[in-house]
């Protein structure tokens, strides 16, 4: 979260100027030759774009078309469309579960886990950068192990640790006298998500650590030394020199983490009660799965997918704009 944009008035004041400059390349003199020159890259890109359109855009369009239908097994069999307009969307947006449980869980979890992953990952990257070659190899191998572990396996390990009757966690607490009777941590909303948070941060921080480390190694040593000469402490040097240098890197890891953590599914679905029998822990991924695939309501599921895509696009767009505006300054 260290990469958040500083004072907005200044950056928003700059933004239009920046946008104007970016557009400048396009608007300069629309004579015939210039137009041909402007069109050439697009022509060269056209075959690739068309392949992308067929493979990516068409499925997207299909999903959108499904979202306007009551599309179930019967429609699949007969192949006949069953248009219902925007009814899927109104049903989603008027579902009380969505506003009281699903969205708060999803958004709250995403915010906490993105923050946790990025902060912890960056801390590990700083640690790695200060280690010698031998220990850096040892530590990064250990980190890679966490990364390489499949989400399913990792989830089962956490479930086992927090198991009510036979789990290490309860055993330890009871042996220390902190707990009298076993507690089932999976039945409470907060404890449930605390475990998911541990799981997701544990699985996600290596990516952040490795990416940020690559950026850290690129920060010019001279600048840091100069700052040290000027009397800047370690924290000051980190926040005033390293962080601004790594803005792009942070933008990438934050956007990717946000997308991943919004869509988290296996880590919730596979937890005891997470597949839908504990309604207070439903998140967007599990809810849409249960409501659409579980019920053969593919149209409804498509509508959720469209809304999720729009939401993530909006988040990404806002974030990219903020970062680009910073750059222009």
């Amino acid at each position: 979260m260290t990469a958040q944009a500083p004072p907005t008035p200044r950056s928003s004041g700059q933004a239009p100027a920046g946008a104007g400059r970016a557009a400048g390349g396009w608007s300069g003199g629309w004579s015939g030759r210039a137009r041909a020159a402007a069109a050439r890259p697009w022509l060269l890109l056209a075959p690739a774009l068309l392949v992308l359109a067929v493979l990516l855009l068409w499925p997207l369009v299909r999903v959108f078309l499904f979202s306007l239908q009551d599309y179930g097994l019967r429609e699949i069999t007969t192949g006949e469309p069953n248009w219902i307009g925007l009814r899927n969307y109104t049903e989603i947006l008027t579902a009380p579960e969505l506003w009281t449980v699903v969205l708060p869980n999803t958004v709250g979890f995403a915010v906490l886990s993105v923050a946790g992953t990025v902060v912890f990952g960056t801390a590990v990257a700083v640690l790695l950068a200060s280690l010698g070659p031998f220990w850096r190899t040892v530590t990064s191998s250990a980190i890679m192990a966490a990364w390489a572990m499949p989400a399913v396996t990792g989830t089962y390990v956490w479930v086992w640790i927090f198991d009510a009757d036979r789990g290490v966690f309860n055993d330890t607490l009871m042996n220390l006298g902190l707990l009298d009777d076993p507690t089932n941590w999976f039945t409470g909303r907060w404890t449930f998500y605390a475990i998911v948070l541990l799981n997701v941060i544990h699985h996600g921080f290596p990516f952040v650590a490795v990416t940020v480390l690559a950026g850290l190694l690129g920060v010019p040593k001279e600048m840091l030394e100069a700052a040290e000469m000027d009397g800047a402490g370690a924290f000051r040097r980190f926040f005033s020199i390293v962080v601004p240098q790594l803005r792009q890197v942070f933008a990438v890891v934050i956007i990717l983490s946000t997308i991943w953590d919004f869509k988290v599914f296996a880590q919730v679905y596979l937890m005891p009660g997470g597949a839908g029998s504990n309604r207070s822990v439903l998140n967007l991924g599990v809810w849409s799965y249960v409501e659409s695939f579980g019920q053969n309501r593919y149209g409804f599921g498509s509508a959720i997918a469209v809304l999720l895509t729009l939401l993530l696009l909006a988040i990404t767009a806002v974030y990219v704009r903020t970062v680009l505006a910073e750059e222009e300054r």
Partner: protein
Amino acid sequence: MNRAMRRSVAAATGAVLLAATTAACGGGSGGDSGEGDGALSVWIMQGTNPDADDFFDEVAAAFEEETGATLDVEFVEWGDAHDRFVTSIAGGTTPDVAETGTTWTPEFADAGALAPLDEHVSGAGVTDDLVEGLVEAGTYDEQLYGMPWYAGVRSLVYNTEMFEQAGVEPPTTWDELEEAAAALKEEFPDKIAVAVPGDAEFTVYPWVWGAGGEVATLEGDTWTSHLDSPEAQEGIGFWTGLATEGGYSSEGATTWRETDVLDAFAAGDVGMAVMGSWTPGAIVEANADMEGKFAAVPIPGQDGGIAPSVLGGSHLSMFETAEDKDLAWTFIEMMTTGEFAQKWAEQSGYFPGQVSLLDETLASTDPLVAPFAEQFVDGGASVPAAPTYGAVQAKLTTSTMMQSILSGEQDVATASAAAAEEMTSVLNGAG
């Protein structure tokens, strides 16, 4: 400009062709490959019978001898099967015959993918010889779409060593069950007297039926769930009360599935639990020490008798895409009646779907066979045979009710009323 345009059109055509071929490859592996040259394509679920390969080699030989047609069996994982059925129904590439889980049969029949079997069944003269719970589950709109093949049933399995040490007998009424649980708890305070799992719907319904309640009934075109009826609430209240009031279960069991019950029972930590007729093998496999240390009894009714329990198993279904329906039926008849049905049941540890084949099993004195067989014949029931029941299962309606009661969030009345409302609405096709 022009040339570039032409090139990109060519590229686009290429891309479309590429997409089309990929799609064709993906869908082509389905069923109708062998039609016309006297072949029957069959999907069988994987993991029921450890000797399935040898078994089907034998069946194929016998089938070819009888009909001259070859048999093309494909094994499909249970976990992937539902999705594969749906995609093959969509693409029109279903096999001629397939094993369908009992709760899927009405769903696929509703989608128009299955062929009705009544004429064939009465032609073969086996109508009255089929296990009733399985016929009920395979019937949709008063027609039979799933031929009963095999099934298992859940009964009350108990740890004989623990029972002996606590000096209790296997229960035949609910009062006896509660007394046994109390005695077990006193003798083994660190163990689980009776496992009451929160995420295992099939362990709940016997108590609903045992108290005289119903899960759901069909009247005209409308389903109504009766999980909130006084009888059902009494049954649910007794079963969950063993955990919440008696403390005979465990904290962890609130989120247990049936596999967790099995693990705990195999570890020797559980006095009694509702478990399937297919589990004894798995228990001994997980812990060889348990051999000979457990037995089963039918699930007791409230004041004695047998509480009905769900028959879980498979049908053989014929798909509408089958060109030679008589050939398909010959295979279904061969598999579900007589010699091969018997053999499959023996190898897999399930019960055959033909009543006359069960006589021998019923005469068994094995403490892990006879009680299950008794439950199978005298206390077998079906979940509501609605095409939408799969949706109820996907929503985990019953498990939600159980978990909220077991965790103390809701009382039996509130939770069962919410579950009944949701089940009624989902069964009738409202999201």
